[in-house]
């Protein structure tokens, strides 16, 4: 294998890993996070945008138990990294867990949640984006 081929493979792997790995959340820029590849069926996706002190996380598919566990683990990490946050606003495409479930699970991980708002995106209750 030539050095160029080796470099190409390294570059390809680097691109795939950058896309697949969670990106450290910055306090003033929007980030896209991806679940780690080690997580089986990481159906959640995940655009995280910071607006002032409020963080919005959007998860775009039905919240299965496994995905829910993933969400909880990610929230726990974020909360540990950013203890000054005053609220987390979590939007789930289809919510089959309650806010209390979510908060309880995070606290079970040893993370104190100061305020957690959970909102279900659903046509009729929240209104469509075009409304």
């Amino acid at each position, binding site marked *: *294998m030539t050095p*160029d*081929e080796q*470099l*190409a*493979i390294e*570059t*390809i*792997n*680097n*691109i*795939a890993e*950058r*896309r*697949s790995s969670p990106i450290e959340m910055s306090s003033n820029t929007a980030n*896209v996070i*991806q*679940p780690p*590849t080690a997580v089986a*069926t*990481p*159906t*959640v*996706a*995940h*655009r995280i945008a910071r607006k002032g002190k409020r963080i919005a996380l*959007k998860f*775009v*598919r039905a919240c299965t138990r496994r995905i829910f566990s993933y969400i909880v683990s990610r929230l726990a990490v974020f909360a540990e990294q950013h203890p000054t946050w005053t609220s987390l606003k979590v939007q789930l*495409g289809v919510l089959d867990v309650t806010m209390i479930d979510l908060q309880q699970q995070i606290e079970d991980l040893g993370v104190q949640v100061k305020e957690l708002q959970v909102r279900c*995106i659903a*046509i009729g209750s929240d209104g*469509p*984006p*075009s409304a």
Partner: protein
Amino acid sequence: MKIAILKPDYGIHGGFERLLDEIARRLITLGHSISWRTVQSGHLSKSIFGTDVDESVYSLHPEFFRYASFVDQFSEVDCSRADLVLSSQPPSFAVSHPRHLSIFYHHCRIFYDLADEFAAHFPYPEVHAAAVTAVRQLDTPLLECVTHFLAGSNDVAARLRTYNGLSDNVTVFSAGSIFGGGQTVLEKRPPSRESGGEFEQVLCVSRHEFPKRTELFAHAMACAPELPGVSVGTGGQRDSVMAISGNLTKTDPWTVNSGPLWHGRANLVPTTPIPANVRFLTNVSARELDYLYRNALCVVAPSLKEDYGLTAVEAMSYGKPLIVCSDGGALTEFVEHEVSGLIVEPTGQAIAEACRRLAQNPDMARQLGQAALQKSLHYTWDQAERQLVQAIDRVMS
């Protein structure tokens, strides 16, 4: 609803683009507003997910880096004001939206079902192996975020199951004929010559690209020089196919192995005149294409592992027998051998023999064409629209 349709823009307007146009037209008729969100291939960056790619590295596998750049750019497309997004060709499914319907006709196939065929003649097989792994690593979490898939055929649905473990949210979409404004051609066309009687040509309507394998059509026409043949289509391999057609006049085509003709994917330049019995046409008007279909003996669709086969549906709606290859993927779903067409080995010789068989047996050609016509009635846009509406309902519920 506001529906955003996402699509990579390759600067061509082929069969799939016409299919999307018809879907958009029907959605508008149903009262939805449509916006198109495209990423142009000419505007792709060589900084991908924050990784700068040197030109020397890029050139070792431009297909991968172009694809990864598409993923990067589609990930950044903001469709938050849309009520629903409808992604199409890969990797437009990289868009993030809670209500995501994918009109899914294929993966980026050289990294999936055509990976081995591609690697066999790719100069850097280890680089391609890394690219295959990387693309699947990129695609998997994105595909898992799609709310529902309308797979272009049973073959495509099987690929989603095999490569991504997706099946619960996958249903099959059977598009109708797209030629003639999406209406059944049978209802509009003027009286045609009967199949198998007087005819003007064997027809092949296909882009000249790697998996389309139009080299086999050129080879078949070289093997049967008494049969006039017309190829309609553009594509990156057109010059090579024309060169192969010309080169085959210098040898006995019956002794030529078809495999290397299309496996090689060499960028040949035509130097020898093409045979007198073959014409390669591009930019054919709808009226001209209608004429060609009406006066065809049969339609050859030589593709390898085709996703669906829009041309096949068109040909059947004209009552023309199809000749497809045994490794033609979804094309073989359309054809019942010796009932509605002929399924042959993927060689120029076998296709030539099938064409001759129809030319010499007008009654057989007529019967196969009639069966094909009956089969085509199962592929209507009204049915496709129902499948589309049901899928949208599932996404929105």
